[in-house]
């Protein structure tokens, strides 16, 4: 089943180049719809709230035994929700490109589908290297999409995107490998703690080379010293923080977003950025909870910088797409802030934020793409007051902007509020740690939340500024004919679009709007679905908080570690 989620888009991608040019889009759409149907069946068709939900879906096959690799796919509610998001954005990205992409369509849809497969794989992988393979492989399709179908500065943007994230993740790979080495060489399988762990879950492989996610997490979180964890976490952070992106490693994002084609931006905002947060959540924190705790104050500081700084930067943009791109930096700041609060509200909020941001910002990019398709500009100086020309579009735009602002009743609010609440509650998390830069003493929760809260105001400032310029105000349009003659024959081939949205475009936006509303009013199913995953993360951190990890090879440290194990088990 899980394999099918990856294979369906891949196979479709293989079929797409063979399809006749006219029906390439339809074929791709069909493939993504099938994948969506499967994902919907898996997501809705079962109860994900149990701790072992989804275990029966796991796939495991021997792969490269010499390297300790296993082709292992698995899922839980948390992963599944992100898979569902990916699957949902799949057909939307395909459908939104029917008129936008008219050249080299086969390549386009092929890579789009490959990208979907890779992203799905990231969320399903339960082997670190498999995760890394998918994680890295997302770069290639995105690189192609940006550099072939983007706008003027696309090549530089694509290269920057690729190199920046590649560099980060190579260092993350070093961290992953270190963890694996640690498990193989620093963990003694005969150790009582290790034995107890294996007894509790027989799948664990301790004391041998493996990249199995659960095993490495058990080994590293239990046996690795806090200081080592700090380093390993730093390595992983290099990879994931770039992807998120956290300030100050965010500068590839505005560029990539601005230059990417619409579907690329949607995927980028909707899913690709979530790979970073997902990596932090599922991999990094689980692997080195103590390291994560040590890093939390610094990361919190960076998040605040992102929320406030990137927000203010949004406010002075004239390029709509860039504005929304920078807003992603600010929004993801909330998401990571909640995550590093390490409490239920924060982590729940963070996970919801991943999904909600995917929906609302993805939709905003769609809206902007529709404008770009019509006017071939994104500058707020050239377009404005489009509500008069395109009322339906304007309605959607206002709706999604409000979702993005975090208006209660829409999806953004629930997650944003929970993230803030989490940060507020997490008084001791933001406190200084011996290994931390930038932390101070005292309960900083309220202050952190208050500063982050100004992000709500700033979000209102820049998003309404955008609405005020683009949607409202007196109508401003660039002269159509000029553009068409200037850009030569390429555009003549394009089907002329009506002033307001077509039925197809409405069909693309409507599901997102419905979901935004539903998740805002009735987030309960989703919250229940991701809850076990959230609890797992919190348990890991709680475990590290209550227990001092053995600093030396555990042969001597049994006595101390055994009760710690008991508490850990109790926490589960």
């Amino acid at each position, binding site marked *: 089943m899980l394999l099918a989620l990856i294979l369906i888009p891949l196979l479709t991608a293989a079929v797409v180049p063979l399809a006749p040019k006219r029906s390439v889009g339809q074929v791709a759409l069909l493939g993504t719809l099938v994948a969506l149907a499967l994902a919907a069946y898996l997501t809705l068709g079962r109860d994900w709230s149990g701790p072992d939900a989804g275990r029966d879906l796991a796939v495991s096959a021997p792969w490269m035994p010499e390297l300790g690799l296993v082709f292992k796919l698995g899922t839980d509610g948390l992963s599944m929700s992100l898979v569902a998001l990916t699957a949902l954005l799949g057909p939307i990205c395909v459908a939104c490109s029917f008129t936008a992409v008219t050249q080299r369509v086969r390549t386009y849809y092929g890579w789009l589908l490959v990208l979907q497969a890779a992203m799905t794989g990231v969320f399903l992988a339960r082997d670190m290297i498999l995760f890394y393979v998918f994680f890295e492989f997302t770069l290639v399709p995105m690189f*192609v999409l940006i550099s072939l179908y983007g706008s003027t500065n696309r*090549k530089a943007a694509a290269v920057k995107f690729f190199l920046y994230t590649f560099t980060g993740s190579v260092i993350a*790979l*070093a961290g992953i490998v270190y963890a694996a080495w640690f498990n193989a060489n620093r963990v003694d399988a005969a150790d009582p703690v290790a034995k107890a762990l294996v007894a509790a879950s027989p799948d664990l492989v301790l004391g*041998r080379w493996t990249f199995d996610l659960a095993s490495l997490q058990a080994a590293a979180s239990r046996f690795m010293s806090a200081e080592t964890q700090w380093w390993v976490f730093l390595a992983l952070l290099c990879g994931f923080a770039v992807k998120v992106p956290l300030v100050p490693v965010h500068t590839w994002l505005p560029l990539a977003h601005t230059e990417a084609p619409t579907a690329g931006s949607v995927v980028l905002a909707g899913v690709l950025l979530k790979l970073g947060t997902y990596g932090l959540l599922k991999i990094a924190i689980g692997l080195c909870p103590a390291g994560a705790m040590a890093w939390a104050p610094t990361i919190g500081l960076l998040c605040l910088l992102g929320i406030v700084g990137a927000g203010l930067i949004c406010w002075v943009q004239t390029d709509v797409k860039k504005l929304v791109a920078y807003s992603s930096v600010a929004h993801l700041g909330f998401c990571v802030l909640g995550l590093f609060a390490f409490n239920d509200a924060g982590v729940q909020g963070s996970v919801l934020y991943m999904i909600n941001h995917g929906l609302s910002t993805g939709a905003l990019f769609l809206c902007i793409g529709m404008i770009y398709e019509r006017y071939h500009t994104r500058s707020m100086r050239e377009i404005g007051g489009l509500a008069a020309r395109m009322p339906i579009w304007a309605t959607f735009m206002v709706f999604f902007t409000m979702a993005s602002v975090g208006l209660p009743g829409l999806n953004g609010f629930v997650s944003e509020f929970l993230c803030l609440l989490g940060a507020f509650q997490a008084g001791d998390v933001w406190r200084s740690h011996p290994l931390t830069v930038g932390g101070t003493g005292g309960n900083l929760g309220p202050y952190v939340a208050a500063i982050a809260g100004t992000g709500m105001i700033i979000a209102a400032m820049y998003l309404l500024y955008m609405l005020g310029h683009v949607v409202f105000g007196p109508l401003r349009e660039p002269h159509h004919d000029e553009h068409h003659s200037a850009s030569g024959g390429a555009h003549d081939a394009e089907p002329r679009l009506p002033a307001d949205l077509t039925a197809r475009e409405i069909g693309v936006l409507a599901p997102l709007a419905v979901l935004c509303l539903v998740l805002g009013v009735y987030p309960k199913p989703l919250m229940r679905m991701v809850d076990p995953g959230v609890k797992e993360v919190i348990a890991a951190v709680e475990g590290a908080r209550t227990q001092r990890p053995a600093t030396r090879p555990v042969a001597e440290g049994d006595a101390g570690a055994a009760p710690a194990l008991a508490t850990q088990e109790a926490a589960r």
Partner: protein
Amino acid sequence: MIEKIGALWPEIILFAAACIVMVVGLSPTAAVRRLCAPLAGAALIVAGIVAWFTTPAAHGPLPMLPLFGKTLVAGVGVLLALLLAGTPDREYESAIARGATGYDPIRANRAEFWAFFLFSLTGAMLCAGADDLIWLFLALELTSLPTYIMVAVSTGRNRSMEAAVKYFFLGALGAAVFLYGFTLLYGGTGTTRLFAPAGEPSIASILAAQAAGPGINAVAMTGLVLSFLGVCFKIAAVPMHFYTPDVYQGASSAVAGFLAFVPKAAGFFTILILAGAAGWWGSSPVDAGGSLPQPLHQIVLIVAILTMSVGNALAVVQSSAKRMLAYSSIAHSGYMLVGVVAGPGPANAPYTSNGVAAVLFYLLSYGVMNLGAFAVLASLERRRADGSADEADDVNDLKGLCATRPLLGWTLVLSVVGLLGLPPLLGFWAKLPLFTSAISSNEIGLVIVLGLNSAVAAYYYLRLASVALLESPELTNDTVRSSPFPARAVAGLASAVGIVLLAAWPLNQWAMQGGRYQRVEPLKAAEGTPPARVDAGAPAAR
């Protein structure tokens, strides 16, 4: 003595084939002349099979290295034979075909070229199986001397001459350096035997004894260092890298592809053998097998870092695809040296901790991926007004290749993306063991440098890939055409298939076998007697 010959069957076969080819290639009948390449290929296949079945485990620290090395050389050699198809005498043969001139054996190079090709591969194989300094020296020279000629005759243009003269003279300088190193090594230990059965004196066991005792003797250590630096010429490592881009660019693409693999393989076999003799003994803080003896370890480390950094930095600024690949070849040597630094880990270390296995697998992967890239270059040419052809060289020659020649284009994309090390292609699976083994030996800094260098490399590889994949083809009269040698494209295709599939095939099992390491026991000498004295008493085992 006779059992050593038993271990040399593959080399003997290649040698015999070389002799046959030398005769066949002189035949006045074109069809017979053309048998050279098929004969060479067949000989390589046979030699590979024979190597697989007959090569015995050697004494010494890396018992399976000969087996691995020989089969690897034979395997990649087959592909190289495909790649080199049509290289010698191209213009001469076409002149004969046009009837412009008759056949004159004096003016033909084909026979020598293919014979030298086989000789060079023989040398590489011999390197893998060497257990004596003299043998090693001869094998290295056998590997490289033919290549000088191959470069010189590869295109018949001035550039090839220039490449050959640089290659030859600098090669001689390099050879002198490692020869002097070998000399000192002999001086410091009193024997040229690298490995010997347990209890018998050999460089490995004597050095082990020295390391266990007062520390490795300075002369021997100087010898090791100089040998290493000399062999750096073969693997194109800093500081012996200067020739690489000029030679690769001057030689035809096919020969450049050959140069990027065969001498490099021979060089790495040599380095591994020397390192094995020196022993990964050092007091490494980790519970791996330990590191190389101290100054050598640091020197290899420095060379590794310099090599990858310099190679990548220079590759970034190139506009000639061949030069770019040449510099990247330097960088890849640097990556592989990481595995040498990491060492094989403790006895029976898993693949993940075995740097030697990592080097071997990387060598294999590099051979395959690099071959693809050069095969594509060799398959493309620009016709000049006079009908002669220049091989594609500039990056822009590759514009839109995926659109105009999908097969070649995708081969190129796969090769360079593979070389870049992007999962899930072969390059990643080659780099991963380097990561794991280096971390196993606690070389975390080196791993970070390796990672950052991969990122730098990504820049120019991406450029190559995107030129081929994303740019639209140039539509001018001076178009790039395919060269008339489908065998080259076949070689490229084979490599592309390898890049995708080899990772799944249990080749790393093979590399792991090849990298198996057993620690050399120190020579048990009478207390207080210097090892050399003992050796001096024993007659040379030869």
